[in-house]
């Protein structure tokens, strides 16, 4: 007999799928059918693994399911590895705060709301800010506008660092255009004893009309697209097969996952609230679980934010504006401070 709590959870999953299909105009039942198909695949994988008697393969199946899968997203072709190799390496992103011609109206009349000092309570001492990609791995690239994901993420990370470091210690996984393997990023986070891990990425979606941001926390997703996405982001992770068991433990650590989800919700809320004035068409594409290595292998609450869609022409242009990237950094700062405040107040409540 299914428990009440599990039953309600299942109902809400279905309700959320129904609304997501409505928002993204997918035919009704698409997400459910994908889930069911994946569930069959996963069930088969589990049986195979148990018969073989090796948990390592389970870990690989969960963490990298989709690498060879037929759901590999169009994103793969669009990420920078191939583009960079083709010699189409664009110049670094402009970091000027001056909007380019024709986009001035986007930010006109809008005053950046500076965030105050000392708002992060002691519950959070140290935050790792991870600028996605770097070095040879340029991430998503838009040659026409001269935008590279690795430059955009680094710029936003630096801005976030400036905001956060007024109150707390910030550890950056990279400060320049360096190639830092994912295993090293998680090692930096774990060895620093950080309280939170925030990874910054920029999205590329096959649907060029799609826009907005997505926020992830660690978990085994049921969405084949997300697994394919994770497979792309996890490429060259630097993890060995022997690490896979520990990675699996990371996915299923409930307390950390709950905290990660809470942080992800704060990030999602803050990005929407902060960006909607500059980008009225901004879409919150949801808080989702995915097995990104940087989320799975870190020991603290961790989130990965795809802060905008570079594949959408308008958002790409906005991303080219320093002022817009500053908004994104401010949103992430507000999310971290809001999460920390909530954590602090709930700690006090429990103590009382």
């Amino acid at each position, binding site marked *: 007999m*299914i428990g*009440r709590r599990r*039953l*309600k959870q*299942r*109902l*809400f*999953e*279905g*309700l*959320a*799928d*129904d*609304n997501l299909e*409505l*928002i993204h*105009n997918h035919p*009704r*039942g698409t997400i*459910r059918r994908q889930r069911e198909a994946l569930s069959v695949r996963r069930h088969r994988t589990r049986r195979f693994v148990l018969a073989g008697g090796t948990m390592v393969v389970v870990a690989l199946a969960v963490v990298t399911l989709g690498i060879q899968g037929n759901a590999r997203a169009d994103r793969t072709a669009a990420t920078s590895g191939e583009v960079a190799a083709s010699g189409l390496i664009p110049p670094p992103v402009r970091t000027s705060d001056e909007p380019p011609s024709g986009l001035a109206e986007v930010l006109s009349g809008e005053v950046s709301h500076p965030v105050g000092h000392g708002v992060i309570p002691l519950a959070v001492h140290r935050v790792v800010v991870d600028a996605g990609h770097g070095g040879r791995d340029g991430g998503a690239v838009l040659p026409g506008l001269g935008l590279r994901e690795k430059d955009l993420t680094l710029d936003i990370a630096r801005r976030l660092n400036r905001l956060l470091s007024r109150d707390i210690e910030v550890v950056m996984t990279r400060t320049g255009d360096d190639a830092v393997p994912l295993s090293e990023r998680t090692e930096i986070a774990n060895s620093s004893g950080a309280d939170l891990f925030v990874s910054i990425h920029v999205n590329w979606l096959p649907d060029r009309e799609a826009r907005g941001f997505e926020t992830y926390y660690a978990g085994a997703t049921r969405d084949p697209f997300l697994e394919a996405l994770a497979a792309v982001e996890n490429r060259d992770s630097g993890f060995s097969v022997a690490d896979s068991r520990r990675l699996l433990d990371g996915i299923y650590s409930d307390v950390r996952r709950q905290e990660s*989800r809470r942080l*992800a*919700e*704060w990030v*999602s*809320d*803050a990005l*929407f*609230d902060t960006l*909607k004035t500059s980008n*009225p*068409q*901004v879409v*919150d594409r*949801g*808080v989702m679980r995915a097995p990104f290595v940087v989320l799975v292998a870190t020991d603290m609450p961790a989130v990965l934010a795809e802060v905008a869609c570079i594949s959408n022409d308008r958002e790409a242009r906005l991303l080219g504006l320093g002022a817009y990237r500053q908004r994104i950094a401010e949103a992430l700062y*507000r*999310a971290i401070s*809001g999460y920390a405040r*909530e954590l602090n107040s709930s700690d006090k409540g429990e103590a009382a």
Partner: protein
Amino acid sequence: MTDKSQHLLVGIDLGTSQSAISTSDGDRKVVDSYVGWPVDAVARKILKKEVLFGTDAVENRTMLEVHRPLERGLLKEGSDKDQQAIRELLAHLLELAGADEVRKKGGKVRAVVGVPAEALRVNKQHVRQAMRGLVDGLIIVSEPFAVAYGLDALLHAMVVDVGAGTTDFCVMKGRYPTEEDQRTLTNAGDWVDEQLHTLLAERHPGISVSIHTVRDWKEKHSFIGEESGPITVSVPIAGRPSEIDITEEVRQACESLGPPVAEAMLDLVASVESEYQDKVRHNVILAGGTSRMPGFGAYLERAMDEYGGGKVKVVKDPIYVGADGGLALAQDAPTSDWEKLPD
């Protein structure tokens, strides 16, 4: 970020006849789903309002362009005015519930809006559009599911929600209802009104009576089965005030609703796995404004007799049961499930 304690959660039942709202502050409001705009400057001067709602709109309809935007449970397509009406109606409900004040103070308002079980996607998109700028978070939900959730009938239960525009069916199988778990009929309260209107016109050819008056008669006198006494009404026939007995017409009109509803209910029960059908038949919940029709529950129970019997529970508060269910969903929904709406 705002203080999350300032959030207001609301459940909205957007109905053809009446629309209701329930809030996390314990407030509940209902309005008749009519929206009217003054036809000219004179009407505006007399009425002193830019837009009127509910009974105000119906009572002053001669001076208004009145819209009932949800015919047969669905937003009328292709009419900008009806889309505007639905937005006005939603805005009015939210204003009555104090949502504007919450937002002015920097708080957030999140709404669960119930729509008919088989509402077209385009209708749901209209609702999403209409809610932009009115609330911060939105979840659209099948109305009978909201009813089931509010009544905690989550497993092996069926909701039969007989409204004005539609009768919605939803069988609860422990999952969010899919298309095969739901049905929508346009045989509902309005359909009974039309039947009654036609029957009266056939019997009294010179009768002069509006559909609004016929609706009032039905709401006062409807029944299925044994009548409690003769039903007589005053109405002009060929211009002459007359007293007529409409008992038989009311009976025929109301009873015409029984067979299609019973058939759809039994059809849906048959779609349930055989070992659970008995449980579902004994857990039928009759909701919606038209569920107040005396004898309706008993009629549906009789229809189940030859299938092994069943039990129909008529909800006590059909006006708010959908909105309360929406509110219950809003209170339990994870933060990440809300669609954030821009201003």
